[in-house]
């Protein structure tokens, strides 16, 4: 098993940027159904800016890597997703402050929990409100359970991805309670939430990027 240091975290977050950008159109299409069609654009702008900034860092700490992403969202994004991810990545940064490596399942459980908690604090959404929390909350919970059970990191991350995807699929059956789709009520049922989908993409990319290191 390799050390997951700040450089690795930075590489992981760059992979996330690539994954988001590769799925820009898919995320926009989902957001078009009941929203304004820009979710893939907002996430791409944030993560692209983050990737550029990450590339300029020399041996960042994990905290700095996460904070750099938070700043990219703070500077460039806006929108509902921008406010949420700015806060979420800042919370992740605080959660890893002082740590040189993030090798354990518990390390990442703390990160996911910080992200989900901060998003909830900012956006006031609950589980089943058909938002990105429907991916982040189950993912954080699955990872925490894995950590409590002593599961290795790669297994924990896999479980988190699976939980996130189940959450995404579940959004299809929900009526939105937050965000611009919330005014549509019943008419928004049947559509998969864009924000939950990009959340799952992030979670899945972290898992896959860390797989070699976490084995």
């Amino acid at each position, binding site marked *: 098993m390799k050390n997951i240091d700040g450089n690795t975290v930075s590489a992981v977050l760059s992979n996330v940027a690539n994954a988001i950008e590769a799925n820009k159109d898919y995320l926009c299409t989902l957001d078009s159904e009941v929203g304004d069609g820009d979710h893939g654009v907002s996430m791409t702008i944030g993560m692209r800016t983050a990737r550029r900034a990450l590339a300029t860092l020399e041996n960042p700490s994990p905290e700095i890597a996460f904070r750099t992403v938070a700043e990219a969202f703070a500077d460039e994004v806006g929108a509902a997703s921008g*406010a949420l991810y700015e806060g979420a990545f800042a919370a992740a940064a605080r959660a890893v402050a002082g740590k040189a490596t993030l090798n354990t399942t518990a390390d990442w459980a703390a990160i996911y929990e910080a992200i989900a908690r901060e998003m909830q604090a900012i956006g006031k959404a609950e589980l089943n409100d058909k938002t990105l929390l429907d991916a982040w909350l189950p993912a954080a919970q699955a990872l925490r359970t894995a950590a409590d059970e002593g599961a290795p990191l790669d297994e924990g991350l896999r479980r988190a991805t699976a939980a996130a995807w189940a959450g995404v699929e579940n959004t299809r059956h929900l009526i939105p309670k937050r*965000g*611009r789709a919330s005014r549509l009520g019943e008419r928004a049922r049947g559509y998969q939430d864009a924000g939950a989908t990009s959340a799952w993409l992030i979670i899945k990319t972290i898992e896959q990027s860390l797989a070699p290191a976490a084995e």
Partner: protein
Amino acid sequence: MKKLINDPFDFVEEMLEGFCAAHDDLIKRVGRRAIARIDAPIPGKVGVVVGGGSGHLPLYTAYVGKGGADAAPAGNIFASPPAKPILEATRAANGGAGVVYFYGNYAGDVLNFDRAAAMAEAEGIRVATVLGTDDVASAPPSEAHNRRGIAGAFLVVKVIGAKAETMADFDAVVATARKANANTRTMGVALTACTVPANGKPTFTIADDEMEVGLGVHGEPGVRRTKVVPVDTIVDELVETILGDLDYTGSDVAVLVNGLGATPYEELYVIYRRVKQILDARRITIRRKYVGEYATSLEMAGASVSLMRLDAELHDLLAMPIHTPMIRQF
């Protein structure tokens, strides 16, 4: 959708560069994504900050100027600005008498403006927020406070800007802003979709003979999709819905007929003609009238009708001059 743009990710940046260069006599840049009137901040005047996603010109950046707003942050296309440019606009607008925020009631905007407000208050700037909620199609009367803000924003900003220009104090500006919004209702119809440049595909598809009634200004679904009918029939539905939502009996009103982008001005005047017929028949008196493009949705075809119920104060404030990059009233 074909567009006259370069890299879509540079669009807002290049647009702001051109906007600021074209109007350097009236406005100045106060941040990478924030502008203010050239003489801001005005000591002792309550500052007015408006803003939201880009793609709606003249809303909001072109509402900045004498008699209008003091400053505005500009977000990406259809995306609320982040807290940072909102804070920059707030500082630029603050003449020491506090700052009033007015923007459309959208989740993203509320999240970001609220953050900025907290940061501004931490710096000692008093902030109050008034949300635009004029779109009658977006929620039933029982949830009127949850409605979206659309083109009626123009009338409300016109009122707030004028009130602040009279050097009224903070509480008075806030009270008038709330009154202006509470008396404003809008409903619209869209004939074609629009395309977020960096998305590249239309936000929705609509058949060649269909229209969407009550559509949101970002392409969010409306209340009903139906065949296109003669415009008089459409206007009847829009105005009757508004009149059923708020009691305009015997009132003076301001009328705003707003084009969403691609609809010719000629059609807007045909709409105004019908609005006037309806209001005349009901003895509702049109005291102020605005016909044109005041809040667009990129290249969307369609229009909305707004009515503001007027008391003497609202009337007189609407009648005051305004001089911004795209809104001029003598």
